[in-house]
């Protein structure tokens, strides 16, 4: 009996001793802004890179000393993400950076957060809630950029295939519209086939292999994703690799600089995983009060066969499925970050400069 009681006392004592050490640390940390990443699905490379970049940014200045960060995944389960969101409200974070499971499913809880003065920055799969800031790219422009490249390379004349994305999503729709708007300007360009690659290299390869036997010579490829798969199917069918517009898969970029005995004339445009870092920076600056509360559209990072650079925008030692647009390049880059950040969420040397559009 007395043994139990003594043990109880020791436990209580330990708890009491622990409490004061916990509380002041919390109070001291409160001077930092608390910013959390609420992500839905984490099951593909793009999302993993996106989250890794967020983690690495938190380790680098100016974020390391100004921000106390955390991150959560819910899968594509809206009620779970909503529950995590309400827990973040309970934690009294200053801002939530959000890649949502549904464009509308979280609107109710987002309003509750913003009503309480929490800044919500949504990116990639952006939400429709009016009180949330949005950070994204212009998918219509993605479609146009690729199509304009192909049109120019083939002299505004020839047979083109379109490899589309996941039907029913805004991104797929807008990218296709962008491409179609370019084809409409070039009556001599013929879209001889159009099929989905599901933004997945294996699917794109399979569907291309199935379509090719019935197709005339192809002068240009316009592809939304899984571009390296499309090219591999062309090689397997013994076809010449035409000018290609595609996503930012490392495998595709290897073809741009020479891969499997082929060198492709192409443009590689990506939905950048560093949208999470841009959103983090936007949240930080809005919280500090030196940037207006406004939506941001960033330009796509892209490379062509002429500008692609080994170790910077293409990585021969990394898998084909790696997204090589984890960093922007060139003189007007929005974010420049090292490959270790994308791979493991490690800090890079030096400060992390994020160039938001002029306020």
């Amino acid at each position, binding site marked *: 009996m007395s043994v139990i009681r003594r043990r109880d006392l020791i436990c209580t004592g330990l708890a009491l001793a622990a409490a004061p050490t*916990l*509380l002041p640390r*919390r109070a001291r940390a409160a001077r930092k802004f608390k910013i959390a990443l609420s*992500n839905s699905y*984490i099951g593909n490379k793009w999302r993993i890179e996106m989250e890794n970049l967020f983690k690495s940014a938190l380790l680098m200045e100016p974020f390391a000393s100004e921000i106390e960060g*955390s*991150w*959560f*995944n819910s*899968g*594509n*389960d*809206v*009620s*779970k993400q*909503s*529950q*995590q969101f*309400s*827990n973040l*409200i*309970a*934690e009294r974070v200053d801002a939530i950076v959000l890649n949502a*499971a*549904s*464009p*509308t*499913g*979280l*609107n*109710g*809880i987002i*309003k*509750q957060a913003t009503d309480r003065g929490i800044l919500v920055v949504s990116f990639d799969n952006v939400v*429709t809630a009016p009180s949330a800031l949005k950070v994204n790219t212009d998918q219509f422009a993605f479609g146009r950029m690729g199509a304009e490249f192909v049109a120019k390379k083939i002299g505004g004349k020839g047979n083109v295939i379109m490899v589309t994305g996941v039907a*029913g999503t*805004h991104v797929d729709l807008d990218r296709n519209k962008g491409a179609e708007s370019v084809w409409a300007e070039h009556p001599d360009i013929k879209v001889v086939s159009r099929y989905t690659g599901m933004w997945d290299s294996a699917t794109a390869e399979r569907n291309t292999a199935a379509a090719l036997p019935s197709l005339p010579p192809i002068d240009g490829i316009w592809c939304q994703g899984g571009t390296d798969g499309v090219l591999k199917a062309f090689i397997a069918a013994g076809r010449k690799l035409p000018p290609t517009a595609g996503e930012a898969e490392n495998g595709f970029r290897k073809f741009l600089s020479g891969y499997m005995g082929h060198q492709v004339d192409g443009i590689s445009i990506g939905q950048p995983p560093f949208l999470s870092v841009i959103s983090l920076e936007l949240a930080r600056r809005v919280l500090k009060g030196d940037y207006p509360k406004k939506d941001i559209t960033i330009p796509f990072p892209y490379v062509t066969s002429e500008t692609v650079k080994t170790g910077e925008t293409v990585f021969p030692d990394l898998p084909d499925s790696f997204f090589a647009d984890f960093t922007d390049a060139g003189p007007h880059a929005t974010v420049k970050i090292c490959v270790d950040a994308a791979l493991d969420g490690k800090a890079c040397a030096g400060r992390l400069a994020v160039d938001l559009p002029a306020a």
Partner: protein
Amino acid sequence: MTPPRRAPLSQALARHLGLALVATLLVIAVIVYAALYLVTQGRLPGGFELTASVNNTMPLALAALARAIVALTRGLDLSIGGIIDLSNALAALYLGTNAASMIVASALILLAGAGLGLINGALVAYGRLQPILVTLATLAIFQGLAIRVLPQPGGAVPESYTALLVNTGAPYALIYVLALMLLWTVLRRSQAGIALLAIGNDEAAAAANGIDPVATKLVAYTLSGLIAAGAGLFLAASATAGDATTGNGYTLTSIVAVVLGGVSLFGGRGSGIGAILGAFVTTMIVNILFFAHIDPLYQSFYEGAFLVIAVVLAEGIGRLVRRRRVQT
């Protein structure tokens, strides 16, 4: 040895063992959650946390009840997610802005859910088809219909509707939880409720005792559809807009809630109240893992591990108690 005074209690406990276990589990989960919250936040969870948890759990609580009713007949309704999708999509488009239109639209949506459930029931009961196959097929059909109704996320749910179903100011939704539990109790004691469990236990024996298996199955699937449509309304209310795909997840999460709630998927044993409590346990698991600040990459691992442990423990205790009851 056992004092006779205690016999009724232990008997009642044994009869409602599943319920007792899930209630205990919920209490433990709430305590762990509150303790973690206290340690990390330096205060106890309050009104906001309670309200948010209850509001967020409402669709799942309804989905779990819908699933439990069918599970008791030894059936499986996979189409629940599809009905939620459809109801959610319809609600976002047709609720309107005045009280009359909201009431009429809600009633029609619930009716539509019941109708879809009736189709499931008819295929299972008259067609003598495997419930899993029937409802897998109708799940795809209902999801397709939902996407047709609302091809892209959008629509709007009026604020007054949200305030009525999932008021964000106070946990009024607890009233619906109690109402659902009451509804279940009434159903359980009715002729239909007895029939549900009877055919789940042994269809042939139930039929020999004058219970109509066909009618009972029709009732079960119809109720399931009706309640699933209700889940869709709550989902739309808390999102304040529609998305024809957000209901999909409930097909699986409701199975988890039902199993945690002590409802046997092999029919004949369990309670709707248990299923509702099971839904709240799953929400608490999300909360616990959140405040434990577990690496998000391992979160689903812990969630799965926790479920396996909970189910194995519940099953083990259940078996132990039942065996002891047989011996005494």
